[in-house]
């Protein structure tokens, strides 16, 4: 397992290098610059600012010095939030976004797996069609539509829950978490239905029935483990997606998380911020994919032993 993990981390190095290089090129080839929006500023001030942030140097030199900083874990100063570094900004937003992502993932898992398993137990009946139609709807409905709808119903008409904020009023975390998790719940429901259907048709489930085990026991003990492997494999990309994709939800609900910095940085041509966030998210995606792959290996006794023999 250790060898597998190290191997994958080594593979991550060229991937990250490519991510950094491509993003760097794209960011710098976009028209405008971090200071071009401020019209009233005299040219000599802009020159001074550019000199301060080394933007007057040739591009390859900027690239190399940026790369050197990133290797040391330093994403540099933000161009727009003067006086603050990208590292500080990420550190400030990350806990909120991570919390939101975690809640959303939990909601997605609980709703998704329950719906998927229920559907798989009685395929092609109402118990299958209703949750699966719901899942289809959940996948199709974008969060910028679902969020305001939920706010309208639960925040305004029913007046049960706060309409925005994060951690200010009790219950204000519920609607954003649901909005963010809904699409993933739908996806997980479809994955777990497929996985469970496959497992439930296996010979060893028939063996378990022939032994006189009860149906709930068969589902929980004999079927879930194999049936949820597709879900486990999806967890890594899902969590990374939840973190990166939270900006819509954060904007709707006025949450001071990472996602909003990301979008603003793009509009502001805040070069270091865009780059820093991209590299940070890429690293997260790689890490979470690795984690979910390792979990999937650990769940399968055969693979577990192979990987043990390997290391």
């Amino acid at each position: 397992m250790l060898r597998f993990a190290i191997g994958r981390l080594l593979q991550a190095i060229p991937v990250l290098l490519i991510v950094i290089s491509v993003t760097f090129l794209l960011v710098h080839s976009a028209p405008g610059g971090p200071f071009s929006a401020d019209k009233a500023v005299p040219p000599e001030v802009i020159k001074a600012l550019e000199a301060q942030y080394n933007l007057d140097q040739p591009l390859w030199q900027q690239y190399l010095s940026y790369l050197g900083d990133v290797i040391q874990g330093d994403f540099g100063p933000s161009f727009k939030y003067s006086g603050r570094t990208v590292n500080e900004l990420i550190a400030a937003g990350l806990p909120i976004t991570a919390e939101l992502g975690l809640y959303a993932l939990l909601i997605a898992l609980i709703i998704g797996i329950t719906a998927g398993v229920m559907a798989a137990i009685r395929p092609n009946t109402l118990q299958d069609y209703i949750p699966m139609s719901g899942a289809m709807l959940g996948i199709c409905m974008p969060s910028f539509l679902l969020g305001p709808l939920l706010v309208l119903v639960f925040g305004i008409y029913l007046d049960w829950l706060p309409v925005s904020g994060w951690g200010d009023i009790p219950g204000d975390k519920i609607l954003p978490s649901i909005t963010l998790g809904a699409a993933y719940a739908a996806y997980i429901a479809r994955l777990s239905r497929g996985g469970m259907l496959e497992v439930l048709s296996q010979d060893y489930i028939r063996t378990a029935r022939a032994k006189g085990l009860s149906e709930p026991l068969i589902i929980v003990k004999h079927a879930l483990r194999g049936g949820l492997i597709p879900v486990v494999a999806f967890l890594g990309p899902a969590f990374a997606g939840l973190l990166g994709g939270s900006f819509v939800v954060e904007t709707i609900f006025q949450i001071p998380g990472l996602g909003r910095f990301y979008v603003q940085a793009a509009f502001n041509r805040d070069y270091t911020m865009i780059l820093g966030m991209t590299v940070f998210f890429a690293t997260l995606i790689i890490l979470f994919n690795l984690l979910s792959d390792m979990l999937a290996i650990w769940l399968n006794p055969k693979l577990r032993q192979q990987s043990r023999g390997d290391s």
Partner: protein
Amino acid sequence: MALLEVNRLKVYFQTRNGLVKAVDDVSFSVDAGETLAIVGESGSGKSVTCYSLLDLLPKPPAVIEGGTALFDGEDLLTCSTPRMRQLRGNDIAVIFQDPMTSLNPFISIGEQLIEPLIYHPDKTRIQGRKQARLRAIELLDEVGIIDPVARFDCYPHEFSGGMRQRVMIAMALINEPRLLICDEPTTALDVTIQAQILELIKKLQQTRDVAVIFISHDLGVVAGIADKVLVMCDGTIREAGDTESIFYNSQNDYTKKLLAAIPEGAKVLTNRSEPDKPLVEVRDLKTYFSDYSKAAASGGKKYIKAVDGVSLDIRRGEILGLVGESGSGKSTLGRSILQLAPTSFGTVTFDGTLLDDLNPKQTVPWRRRMQMIFQDPYASLNPRMTVYQTLSEPLLYHGLADSKSIDQQVRQLMDDVGLAYGQMRKYPHEFSGGQRQRIAIGRAIATKPELIIADEPVSALDVTIQAQILDLILDLVERHNLTMLFISHDLSVVRYISDRVMVMNKGVIIESGDTETLWANPQQEYTQRLLKAIPLADPRLERRRIASL
């Protein structure tokens, strides 16, 4: 009164193509201590009959249309779900066909073994884990698992097929059932392992006085184990009676056809081989695979030596039989000769040319001259290609036909392998197993090869179909002047078809010779054991054979 009395059982399946009468008006009875064999080919309804007794059929599509199944006076077909749970595993247990897929790969065998005890539906009979573990270890020992204490926590993939089937048997016996249903319990196993498992079932039955329903398509196995035989076909009973009267005095045409289809005795065709002209020369061939298992890691071994130094000649015009049990390396050897598996050492010479030296592009013209027929006609045909596409592809690829002549050539091929030309636009799933193997054979002979390597070409087929395919192969070999390496674990089939035989074990050829010479006088102890383990489809001879072991 009999322990189980099935009366006019009818099980139908509702399919898109209408109602299928899987079991139609079947009646039989089994007494305690008695073995009833249900014999039939695939689709005859023999398994469905038994699964319906335990409510193990998926409903829908299955519907029990009528009949009764009285177990100790209680109707199994109408009893409640909780009552059925009490009967399952407790009074009636099942040993399934395929030990590879019938055990849960995610749960240790010990845990699976004790489940019937620790989750017993009858609350008063639930046992604690410790007690259940002791009982399970005792049973594992009884069914012949070595070192059961250590093996208790192992997972199914750490056991061989034969050992897994022993675990299945232990699992079936753990609650001391009164009726044991064995659904082809040895079909997936090697012949020597089969002999051990059959002996085990027989011994356990005698010591415990259980009734056994033994489902099988293998008449040799049935001859040795059954007291009574039920012959089924298309969901109905064709004949029923005690074993000797069925085998020696059958009144039914279908039973007679089954008995006649068993490959028996020597090859009828003359040996056309030219001893001095080898088409293929294999010298010291070795094919190793990387080994990831725990045992290999701790033992410091890195390779599985699938083929470990094999030298052989395949003479022009002969059918060379290659016999071995699973894991002996016979399939890998076949693939290595065709350069389909990477060889580690040694050389393969085909018609004077060293194949190992050729790069992939250079092998193309040689591929035309040597073809392979694979074991599983369900998996080896592309399900998205019609018969026409499958058969025309090699012809067009090797430039053996142009757009004008291709229709004519495909027509000829289909005719050769006994398929109607009208079926050429159909896809593989629309054909039966035997027809699919005909398509696969047609694909192999399409390029007019000189050498065909047939890897277990009939082992997935029913006995009557098997006989047809074997005759087709013999006919094609003669007509097209083919040379063939025929790989099989089924010794009777190999004897029926081969001029010469090689016996393979653990990656090496341990014995070879002319088929009849080898059969009459095997030199190696392993070969003797292998030949002795073949069940004979004759109750008196079979019982004498078993007794002599």
